[in-house]
């Protein structure tokens, strides 16, 4: 019985691979878009324009405080009702990019704040303009400090992307869900699905740990 199911599962191999590809591309695209916007958010959050920082902070908080599933539904069900028609894929990318922008924003802001004060004083004393100081001196150091957290964020992104399967995107989780309707062995199917995620995420968990250790030793 079990081997029979494994054999049948082999027929679904392409579906699973496609799902894996979808999961990876969803995560990568969202990391890219979210990274750019998150960088901007972080700069604003750590910046001196109080009201803007507050507004962005509130925005970030709204998304950090609600379940991603609800956000996905909002993108998929509510945006069309105000005239923004999105395919499931775009809705998913939008929701995931936005979420990663919010998390990356907070990470970047914490990195900027972790750069010692003396650095910006030295930069000021040399007459750098505000944005030069940020670009040449503060951001490179801030990004180095938060590198492990950014890798950690990407891991979260890969895992959160599974939630998008709820609106019918054919990602790894969704393909597992489809297959389990035909082969009623959840342990086998979602075991295999789990292996798929593990292959992507585990090396990054490893990488993040190593970076963290290196960061710590370089701070000493």
């Amino acid at each position: 019985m079990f081997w029979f199911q494994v054999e049948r599962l082999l027929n679904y191999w392409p579906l699973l691979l496609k799902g894996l590809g979808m999961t990876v591309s969803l995560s990568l695209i969202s990391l890219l878009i979210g990274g750019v916007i998150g960088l901007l958010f972080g700069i604003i959050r750590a910046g001196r324009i109080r009201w803007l920082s507050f507004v962005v902070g509130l925005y970030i908080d709204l998304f950090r405080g609600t379940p991603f599933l609800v956000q996905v539904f909002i993108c998929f069900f509510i945006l069309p009702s105000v005239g923004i028609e999105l395919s499931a894929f775009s809705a998913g990318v939008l929701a995931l990019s936005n979420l990663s922008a919010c998390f990356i924003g907070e990470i970047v802001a914490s990195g900027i704040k972790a750069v010692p004060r003396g650095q910006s004083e030295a930069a000021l004393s040399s007459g750098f303009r505000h944005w030069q100081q940020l670009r040449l001196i503060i951001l490179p150091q801030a990004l180095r400090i938060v590198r492990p957290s950014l890798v950690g964020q990407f891991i979260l992104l890969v895992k959160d992307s599974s939630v998008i399967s709820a609106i019918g995107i054919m990602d790894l989780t969704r393909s597992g869900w489809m297959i389990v309707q035909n082969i009623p062995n959840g342990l086998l199917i979602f075991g295999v699905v789990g292996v798929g995620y593990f292959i992507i995420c585990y090396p990054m968990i490893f990488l993040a740990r190593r970076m963290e250790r290196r960061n710590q030793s370089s701070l000493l």
Partner: protein
Amino acid sequence: MLGNLNIRVIFEYFPALWQGFLNTLMMSGLGFAGAMILGIIACALTIQPLRWLRAPAVAYVDVIRATPLLAQLYFLYFGLPRLGILLPEILIGIVALALNSGAYVAEIIRSGILAVPRGQFEASMSSGLTYLQRMRFIILPQAIRPTVSPLIGQAIVLVKDSSLLSLISVVELARVGQQIALDRFMPVEGLAATAAGFLIIYYMLKALAALWSRFNRLPGQA
């Protein structure tokens, strides 16, 4: 969009929403309690020297951290019946939440213990206290303090994650929101009410974390 918000619908569904809110709280509470127990056990196993006890605990933590909760949830939901274990969905959900968060709790506690300076272990050993006394009076108080904020953070994650139980048709806050959306074709009202419910819990937990760090700072800490 918000101008057209139909408040009546929200009032009409208020009892259902309230019930969903309570269910979310209840499941999150049970899930977190389970996660703490699992996390403490897993952590204890990962820092003790016996290899055959350590390996499964490390594997548990790593596998959970490297896979999404939704896949874990489906694994249990579609898998347990295979093993002849028939549980109500809500229980499966709580178990999944506890298993998932347990791994993160283990990591948080472990980093708390690792953060205790080596000198403290050495000092406590040379003071002639027994192992349990050393743990109880010297190591644990220092190890626990820095874990409280991350643990509250994990509780926040868990509460939000509990919304995924709606996908195995457990009735909780997100599910009620979806019902309003689908029964009445009012996605804005349904999802706004859901989001508001989760935000309430989020801000309460956040305030708790802030309170804790305000009143539990050691003298002289920034």
